[in-house]
């Protein structure tokens, strides 16, 4: 058996034997041309030579990548699955990884017909290149939330694929995700028992709103720090607009948007709801009584207080033992090292965050051997 074969056939053990499941790995395309085999010829001119996506005007003063993990052949950290197995999975003892890719921005680009074709091609590429050959990699069904009918179609097209474990959309959006406009997506996700994860990064680009409610920030420092506000906007909306009254089994994940803002949102919403509930008769419970088992927060970039133990009471307030899931964000500059970033977590909580909560989020399917 070659090294590659042994990697490909790595087995998934019983949950008890798992060490960690990473919910945010950004596998990369060496070139958009990798998608051409998955696209009808009519779209090839739109892909060759670059996708022409809206780009943001804020600049990370570093490379944006983990300098210690760059592969000489392509100058990237995550364009080759075996490289990622080496640099992430083996090095940090991560058993399973959920791929989130580098195409989050489709949610706020302009041409919905092209985006529908592109998203399908991208998902097929993820399946063929990453998921089907590797039992350790799980895929996300990327969708464009701005086109809910197409998104629902795509969920139904791929929802039975054993290796696909969540629906993925950009947190950047024109309307908050509790809005009924998006509910066809949730109907499809619930039908296939797939969680819906939203990921930051495209804020303020394309058709998205300004990245803050008071307009455009000036620096990358602000832009990145402000990301959690899109998450909060969606969180309030999901709870206030009654999504979980309609879709009681839906699970929703906030990826890369911070975590310990949850006590603020839930505490302010509970306070407001008691006074304002006459306006929202579709809600039957306090906002904070909806989120357990339904809302999940991924850890990276974990907040870093001067005294790490200060995180613990906030984690308790948001029931982190049931709501927080581990993410590394490999291979991006602000990667959280699983061996060092969680030193202050009690062992039992760490276990929940690294394994059990991820299984609650994705369902048992994340444990399945999906290779044909």
């Amino acid at each position, binding site marked *: 058996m070659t090294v590659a074969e042994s990697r490909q056939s790595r087995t998934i053990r019983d949950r008890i034997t798992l060490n960690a499941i990473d919910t945010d790995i950004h596998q990369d395309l060496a070139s958009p041309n990798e998608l051409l085999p998955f696209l009808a010829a009519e779209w090839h001119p739109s892909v060759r030579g670059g996708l022409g996506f809206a780009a943001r005007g804020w600049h990370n003063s570093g490379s944006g990548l983990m300098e210690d993990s760059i592969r000489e052949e392509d100058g990237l950290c995550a364009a080759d699955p075996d490289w990622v197995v080496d640099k992430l999975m083996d090095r940090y003892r991560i058993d399973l990884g959920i791929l989130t890719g580098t195409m989050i921005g489709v949610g706020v680009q302009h041409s919905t017909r092209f985006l529908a074709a592109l998203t399908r091609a991208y998902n097929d590429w993820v399946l063929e290149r990453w998921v089907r050959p590797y039992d350790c990699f799980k895929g996300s069904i990327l969708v464009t939330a701005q086109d809910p009918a197409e998104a629902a179609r795509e969920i139904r097209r791929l929802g039975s694929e054993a290796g696909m474990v969540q629906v993925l959309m950009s947190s950047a959006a024109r309307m908050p995700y509790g809005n009924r406009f998006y509910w066809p997506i949730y109907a499809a996700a619930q039908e296939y028992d797939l969680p819906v994860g939203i990921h930051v990064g495209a804020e303020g680009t394309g058709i998205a*709103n300004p990245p803050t409610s008071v307009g455009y920030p000036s620096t990358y420092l602000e832009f990145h720090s402000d990301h959690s*506000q899109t998450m909060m906007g969606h969180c309030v*909306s999901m709870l*206030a*607009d009654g999504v979980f009254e309609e879709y009681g089994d839906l699970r929703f994940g906030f990826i890369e948007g911070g975590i310990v803002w949850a*006590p603020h949102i839930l505490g302010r*919403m509970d306070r*407001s709801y008691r006074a304002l509930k006459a306006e929202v008769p579709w809600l039957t419970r306090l906002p904070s009584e909806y989120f357990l088992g339904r809302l999940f927060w991924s850890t990276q970039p974990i907040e870093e207080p001067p005294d790490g133990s200060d995180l613990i009471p906030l984690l308790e307030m948001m029931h982190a033992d049931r709501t927080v899931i581990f993410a590394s964000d490999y291979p991006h500059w602000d990667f959280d090292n699983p061996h060092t970033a969680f030193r202050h977590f009690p062992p039992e909580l760490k276990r929940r965050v690294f394994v059990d909560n991820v299984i609650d989020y994705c369902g048992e399917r994340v444990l399945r051997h999906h290779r044909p």
Partner: protein
Amino acid sequence: MRIVDTDVHHSFASWHAIVPYLPPAFQRRVIDGRGRGLARHGFRKISEFAAPLATDPSTVAGALTARGVDRAILNGSIHSLGVQPNMDFAAAIARAINCWTFESWVRPHPLFRGSILIAQQDPAAAVAEIEHWAATPGMVQVLMCSASESPYGRRQYHPIYAACERHGLPLALHLGGEGAGVSAPSTPVGHPSTYFEWYSALPQAYMAHLTSMVSEGVFERFPGLRVVLCEGGIAWLPHVVWRFEKNFKAVRAETPWLSKLPSAYVWKHFRFTSYPLEEFRREQDLGFLMRLVHGETTVMFSTGYPDTEFGDPFAMVDSLPERYREAVLAGTALTLYGGRLAVARA
């Protein structure tokens, strides 16, 4: 002094109250105009606990004094002037409201202190408004809405901060105009569906302003400036500060003008009013949050009177650990506003 209330929402019963203080060109608009052409959001507060407007100074003074309040800072009920499309109209309304506040509330009643309301989209006019009132006893701070076209670190607003610093006036921000007029949608992902949703998400405006003001070096340029964030809670601060600081450590090359960590600016320059505090499940949670946000020097009591539908403002601070009580109820406000609160007025 036992209790300073840092956020009272006084109102006029009729727009006629401010007409005498308006230039003739705008008097007709305020008297006749349907809605006066004042942009507002499209949400309506529907609450069984809603109280009548606070229009009568003696009634308000009586109600607050009965609860032990010794000084009350008036922030009014119009928190959207900075996102009105007509900046001349906005500046005229600000001037008229300031005249009315001073003449009808501050001058006759020793309990009340006034805020110098400004419309920040025209910084030159805003500075003129500050200059007009800065020496007037009884006016204790500058007030502008948090709703805005741009985050407040941006340089067009700096003349306002220079004026505040020059006169030792704190700058208060108040929520309310988000999503109205020329404002961006009230969340970065668009307009919410209900007042409940809108109100719950409002503190995000503060998060963006705080991050912007620190990042852009406002407090390097204006080390004397203090900013009061009204009605936005406190429990978001640990997340925002820790995320901001983690990012700063990595990308600080982008902001070489900053000489300190973001948290150092935040705890020194920002103050937070208490009403409404987030609802915490366990009694110890409030004390814990107070420690994280340096509550002994940053949190100031407020009632939001008469908009107290979210619960009794006094009960909200009942579970404060003893070591914060005096500072929150009066001490921090007395330090911040100094002689402007204490000195007897003519």
